[in-house]
């Protein structure tokens, strides 16, 4: 976790990347990976409806970007974003989604069965690699509802609620994980079908410095399938 935070810090302070830039590339990777594994035509629901659950931090921001690109890729995303930071970055991302006619739910579906009926996929953009400690409401209830859905869940960077290094045996078990920048230790505990790498922006010098040993991305793709 410390290393992931150090890399992030270096990208912002030394390399002068803005959070906007990297969040945009990260969110785009997530949408691209999802489109490769669950193309719109493969949905059993009548429309390619996706529920994107966004948490209170940067992982939520990644989710907002992802939702917007999913819309451009032909999906029908719906966002649930209960705790919104009052920062221009997140307000901007929210407006961009709203102006693309992406609905924001006023409340979270109470029953897992309702989610299964309405959506063909759930994107978990609740907590990311900075997550520490206890899960605060409303996310505790959200995660326990998500624990009972049968439609696939795609988690951004870390399955929400997991310890960033040790994982969580009784926690969320997503079908897909999109690791951003580099896989975190928790990814060793990932047992879903699809593990992708996204966030193709790490300068070669930084990769070497932290011995990331990332496999090469294919061509000009912004995602790489690891399993």
């Amino acid at each position, binding site marked *: 976790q410390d290393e992931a935070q150090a890399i992030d810090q270096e990208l912002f302070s030394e*390399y*002068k990347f*803005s959070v*906007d*830039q990297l969040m945009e590339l990260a969110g785009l990777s997530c949408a691209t990976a999802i489109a490769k594994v669950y193309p719109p035509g493969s949905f059993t629901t009548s429309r390619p409806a996706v529920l994107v659950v966004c948490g209170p931090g940067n992982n939520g921001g990644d989710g907002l970007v992802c939702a917007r690109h999913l819309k*451009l890729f032909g999906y029908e995303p719906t966002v649930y974003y209960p705790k919104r930071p009052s920062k221009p970055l997140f307000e901007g991302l929210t407006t961009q989604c709203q102006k693309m006619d992406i609905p924001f739910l006023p409340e979270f579906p109470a029953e897992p069965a309702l989610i299964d009926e309405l959506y063909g996929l759930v994107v978990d953009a609740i907590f990311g690699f900075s997550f520490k400690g206890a899960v605060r409401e409303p996310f505790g209830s959200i995660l326990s509802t998500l624990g009972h859905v049968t439609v696939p869940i795609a988690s951004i960077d870390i399955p929400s609620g997991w310890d960033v290094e040790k994982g969580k045996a009784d926690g969320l078990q997503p079908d897909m994980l999109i690791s951003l920048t580099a896989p975190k230790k928790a990814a060793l505990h990932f047992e879903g079908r699809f593990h992708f790498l996204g966030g193709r922006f790490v300068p*070669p*010098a930084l990769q070497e410095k932290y011995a990331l040993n990332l496999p090469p991305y294919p061509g000009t793709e912004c995602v790489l399938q690891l399993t």
Partner: protein
Amino acid sequence: IPVSPQAFPLPSLPRKQPTVLVVCGPAQNGAIGLVCARHLRIFDYEPTIFYPKRSPDPLYQDFTTQCEKMDIPFLSYLPTEVQLINDAYNAVVDAVLGAEAEAAEGREPCAAILSTLKLIRIPIVSLDVPSGWDVEAGSSGGISPDVLVSLSAPKQCARRFLGRQHFVAGRFLPYDVQKKFELNPPEYPGTECVVALRALR
């Protein structure tokens, strides 16, 4: 966030090293060139940048730092000996002037750059508008790019484009903007952010 043209059609490069020269002007078109150079580096090309007149905009300064920290060299001058450019690079990215340019092309260093670019023999990829062209009427006697990447939507001068490939990079435009300006964009394949328009020849 500027779009990074990803579909640079260089499947078989004539030079052993995948070198590309990215020439960046003083305004937004140049900044897009900086972002493009960074992504080319990530894609394992070897870009070199010529950016003689740097914008004071902090965002564009950050783009410059990002490129420098990625070990992308910045030339201190553009050789007037055109053969040197032809020999060293596989292609040139023209990010000198975009649709907003008016009198800029008459001013240095753009004028000198453009007269050099008119003489090179390696392919030129122009971002949005071939630099020096009038954004509506086009240009006679201006540079002749091999590839044009129209940003958001083709500009009127694109009708005069006679090069090999024309791409549009406009997938991120919200639908209401597309409708408002009656853009009628083509379908983008899969998750691609660029689409090739029908070649003129």
